[in-house]
């Protein structure tokens, strides 16, 4: 076995490593999504003086699995006069878009196994990483619009239209708010952006306005409360997934929660230093802790750092949902176009001045 690995051509090894990484990331993501379902139900219960799911497994932790089993065995109903192809395609588009974005997210630095430095991202050092994320996540709107349109239901259609208008508007704010970060780090490569933030040099300290705009825009992008207009229950029944049942609905459900995890991960990577530890590795080494680059302990600490920050944002998404009422449609558009877009542009100007002053006098 060992000889086979050492004698195999380089591309075969790379392929195997990548496949293993994909499998791990996919499973972590899907498990994380079910964890999010649990967290949402539990946290909402706590905020409303209830106890939430507590029957299936310890603390109700197996509740999402029970839900999925139920959804899988439910009848899959496709409405008459629905466009069957697109009706089937919509959830697939939604989920594949979300999954593919996970490819560029760095969960840690690198791990040294069998004398090899294996980076903890499926596609590490992708020099257009951030652009790729934005390109893929804006494709997500197709899934929702197609779902709304192909269902042959006015409520679904309205939900789909609202979501496309909302997502396109906020995509702009999101893209513009991120430019400040790019100016500071000078790269689109997520791995590089994380390296630049090592030693508590988190971007959120230099880009507070950009961070707030990005945070709010990511709420709108994930279609979460207070911007969950596409599925506003009292107005639109279920929004774009009114006519979906069984596991197709389950897929939309999964997409919503994977989207939250994704948005939390991007927030962590861009503004909160990704997997970097609060203290530099050299400090840990001088204390006698074997935290050398690539050592298992370092990887564990880094992944722990990443998942702690990400977990906080996941909770934040849930927390906000159960605290704030839904925005009205015109309020949403006013906020996006009249407040956030000018603010984001002003942020670019300020950052530009700041960066050039820094480069001229302090370097």
């Amino acid at each position, binding site marked *: 076995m060992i000889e086979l690995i050492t004698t195999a051509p380089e591309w075969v090894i790379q392929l195997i490593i990548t496949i293993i990484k994909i499998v791990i990331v996919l499973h972590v993501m899907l498990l994380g999504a079910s964890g999010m379902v649990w967290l949402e139900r539990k946290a909402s219960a706590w905020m409303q*003086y209830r106890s939430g799911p507590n029957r299936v497994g310890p603390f109700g932790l197996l509740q999402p699995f029970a839900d999925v089993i139920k959804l899988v065995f439910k009848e899959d109903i496709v409405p008459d006069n629905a466009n069957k192809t697109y009706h089937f395609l919509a959830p697939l588009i939604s989920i594949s878009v979300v999954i593919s974005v996970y490819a560029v997210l760095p969960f840690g630095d690198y791990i040294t196994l069998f004398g090899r430095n294996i980076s903890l991202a499926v596609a590490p050092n992708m020099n257009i990483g951030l652009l790729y994320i934005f390109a893929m996540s804006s494709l997500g709107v197709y899934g929702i619009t197609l779902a709304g349109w192909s269902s042959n239901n006015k409520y679904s259609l309205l939900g789909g239209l609202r979501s496309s208008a909302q997502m396109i508007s906020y995509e702009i704010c999101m893209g513009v708010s991120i430019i400040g970060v790019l100016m500071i780090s000078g790269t689109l490569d997520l791995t590089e952006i994380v390296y630049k933030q090592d030693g508590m040099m988190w971007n959120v300290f230099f880009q507070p306005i950009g961070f707030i705009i990005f945070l709010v825009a990511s709420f709108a992008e994930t279609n979460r409360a207070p911007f969950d207009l596409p599925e506003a229950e009292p107005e639109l029944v279920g929004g774009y997934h009114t006519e979906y049942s069984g596991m197709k609905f389950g897929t939309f459900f999964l997409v919503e929660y994977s989207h939250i995890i994704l948005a939390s991960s991007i927030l962590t990577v861009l503004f909160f230093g990704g997997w970097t530890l609060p203290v530099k590795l050299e400090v840990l080494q001088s204390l006698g802790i074997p935290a050398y680059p690539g050592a298992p302990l370092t990887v564990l600490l880094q992944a722990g750092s990443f998942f702690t920050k990400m977990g906080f944002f996941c909770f934040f998404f849930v*927390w906000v949902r159960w605290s704030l009422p839904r925005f009205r449609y015109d309020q949403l558009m006013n906020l996006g176009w009249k407040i956030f877009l000018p603010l984001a542009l002003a942020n670019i100007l300020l950052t530009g001045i700041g960066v050039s002053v820094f480069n001229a006098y302090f370097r």
Partner: protein
Amino acid sequence: MANVTKNTEAQRLNFWEKLYLPEIARGLGLTFKAMFKPNMTRQYPEERWEPEGSYRGRPVLVQEEDGERCVACGLCSRVCPALAIEVQAGETDKEKERFPKLFEINMLRCIYCGFCEEVCPEEAIVMSKDYELVFTSPEDAIYGKDKLLIPVAKLQDRLEFLRQYK
């Protein structure tokens, strides 16, 4: 447009409220505090609620040591607004001379108003504390004497309540 007084949201709010963020932070603080407060719900099958004597659960017939109190006068059946009670009288050798040969309450019809209890001259039909009513078919919902007769010892709370307030 002369007499239109503007009172829009933007005019009512002050600067900090218009910023949303401090108010949102306040709201988030409220929900966060709520997370650590004790629950108001009850874990039902394990923790059951014991109602007070004033509770109107399912109507039952009071059973003394020598049989039911009911004399089959039929007043409860007459007063029942949902027509849920059926009584058929029979004769007995005891002092009260009459007894219900058949006494049925259709629990799907019963609305728990308590009129039967109020009208009963013998205090023979009272509202119990039983609120767990489950049937699997309409036929099961018709409770006969076997289910309605409850020993007087178990109904002391309600009888005490009736003595005080009726």
